[in-house]
């Protein structure tokens, strides 16, 4: 059992609870999961590993799938708005707390219902298609220290970096001025797997060659 998950104590208890349980109630996702999910409002800090795992799992369901879950919501927020209402129409009201773009006006319920039906129908249609892996094309500028840096060796070093979801592409040297060239190198990355920040750090670790790394272009594929 666990208390109000918006408190650190409640979150800790939830973490302990989820160490032995896949879901809040029973062996399938239900409205109970949704109510706790909505009460949390955002992914928990990484040290609550079990909650984090469960949160990601619940977050992976589409609104339409969530709407189809059965079960009874668990009242969670002490003093807040009743979570039961949130669970009843999840996609329409998925926690005001992290909603950057909340609307001030109450939406017309009928319009909202029609919207939900359309989304659900579309989600059902879409679920039959294979999911595409989101990828980006990134063009990096890798800058040396001076005009004597061995650019070939620099490139060889950069290309030794391997990451799951990272594919190195073409490259060329681009003149900067005063005899200095920068290495411009393409890579294709899977959005969910590769952190550009981490990649830049890894390249900058070749500190004998690399002064800095900048992004010249960043596009969806």
């Amino acid at each position: 059992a666990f208390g109000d998950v918006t408190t650190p104590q409640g979150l800790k208890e939830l973490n302990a609870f989820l160490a032995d349980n896949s879901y809040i109630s029973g062996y399938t996702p239900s409205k109970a999961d949704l109510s706790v999910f909505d009460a949390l409002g955002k992914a928990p800090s990484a040290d609550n590993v079990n909650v984090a795992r469960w949160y990601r799992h619940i977050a992976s369901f589409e609104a339409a799938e969530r709407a189809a879950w059965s079960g009874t919501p668990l009242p969670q927020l002490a003093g807040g708005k009743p979570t039961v209402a949130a669970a009843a129409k999840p996609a329409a009201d998925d926690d005001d707390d992290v909603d950057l773009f909340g609307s001030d006006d109450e939406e017309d319920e009928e319009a909202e219902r029609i919207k939900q039906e359309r989304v659900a129908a579309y989600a059902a249609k879409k679920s039959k298609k294979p999911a595409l892996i989101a990828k980006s094309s990134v063009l990096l500028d890798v800058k040396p220290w001076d005009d004597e840096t061995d650019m070939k060796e620099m490139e060889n070093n950069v290309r030794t970096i391997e990451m799951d979801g990272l594919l190195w592409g073409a490259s060329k040297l681009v003149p900067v001025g005063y005899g200095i060239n920068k290495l411009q190198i393409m890579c294709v990355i899977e959005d969910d797997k590769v952190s550009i920040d981490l990649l830049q750090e890894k390249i900058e670790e070749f500190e004998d060659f690399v002064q800095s790394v900048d992004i010249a272009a960043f596009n969806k594929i």
Partner: protein
Amino acid sequence: MGKEKIHINIVVIGHVDSGKSTTTGHLIYKCGGIDKRTIEKFEKEAQEMGKGSFKYAWVLDKLKAERERGITIDIALWKFETAKYYVTIIDAPGHRDFIKNMITGTSQADCAVLIVAAGTGEFEAGISKNGQTREHALLAFTLGVKQLIVGVNKMDSSEPPYSEARYEEIKKEVSSYIKKIGYNPAAVAFVPISGWHGDNMLEPSTNMPWFKGWKVERKEGNADGKTLIDALDAILPPARPTDKALRLPLQDVYKIGGIGTVPVGRVETGVLKPGTVVVFAPANITTEVKSVEMHHEALQEAVPGDNVGFNVKNVSVKELRRGYVAGDSKANPPKGAADFTAQVIVLNHPGQIANGYTPVLDCHTAHIACKFAEIKEKVDRRSGKTTEENPKFIKSGDAAIVNLVPSKPLCVEAFQEFPPLGRFAVRDMRQTVAVGVIKAVNFKDASGGKVTKAAEKATKGKK
């Protein structure tokens, strides 16, 4: 050769299923963004495979496959031409790190193009509250992209196809949606299109006779037209900030044998010329610029957008570093900031942010930890009105006015004066947890810096 066209940058935002890549691809394909031989090769293949009637789809698929292999650098930068402009187009990826790139990246967009799909349910799913589209649109507006075009895409797959009622329904929804972000719908062109079939892309479509064209009202002059390309041509060109004071954030500093110290960076505002006596903030080092080069060619003048190297005398590489800002010592020179006030929007911080929080800020090329010294007030993002004084903490979704104190010398500016030096990303745990725009800077007194002999001589010589 006529007069050279103005260069503009566009960012395309929208849900992954909105067809924005197809639309982007269509523009590039039809407007000379892909070299002729490549297109001819793919079109020939399409013929041979018996896909002649799907030629366009075939070429786009081929190009996508080529992009996935990453073997052609030229197609990493997507460019095309309209009647009026050279356009660089960014197809915004869903990648989390893209947000930081929007802030510190090389090309600030002059206009955002929002693509929504007209298909039943598709539109509704695309602009749902947890969608990235809202985040991108909000960021674009916050970061100063004040022009917007909306493409209502996939009109061919509305029910019934090319339905006026559906278009009007979506236009109404999107208008209220972008109004909440801050855009004025009356100044936004709405165009019903099919990026796939080409309706209203370059030529008015015969499938939508009910569409009488788009219209925008704005104080710089109204405009109207029929197609998406017309709408792009109606974008107000960026004011080239050459008349502003010089600001050039350093990316790198090189030591070149026989030449000396060469800082490199992009001119954001103003003009840099050989002979300019520059000051490097926040270190307050003053010296003369001997020469300026771009792509190994000497320049007599570098203007905003130019990525240049310049040679300075009597300053060693050790005295300069990335994040410093060069400016003209005689015309509103840059200075270090003691502290600054910014409007911060928390995007996805896992916890609460309270006074004392000290994350790393990425602002132009600087990367420096800054303390949230005082969270002064929570504000309504749209109206800017105070909703809570001295909040104990702020969290995801909140906007707040915050006083920040850099942990090390840092040069920033008010967004109003120098936009590229006045917006920042707040980084924590390799994530962009917040973004900010600087309202005011409390500058440090610029005293006690080094003035090189070259600078003294240059200054005297001009007296």
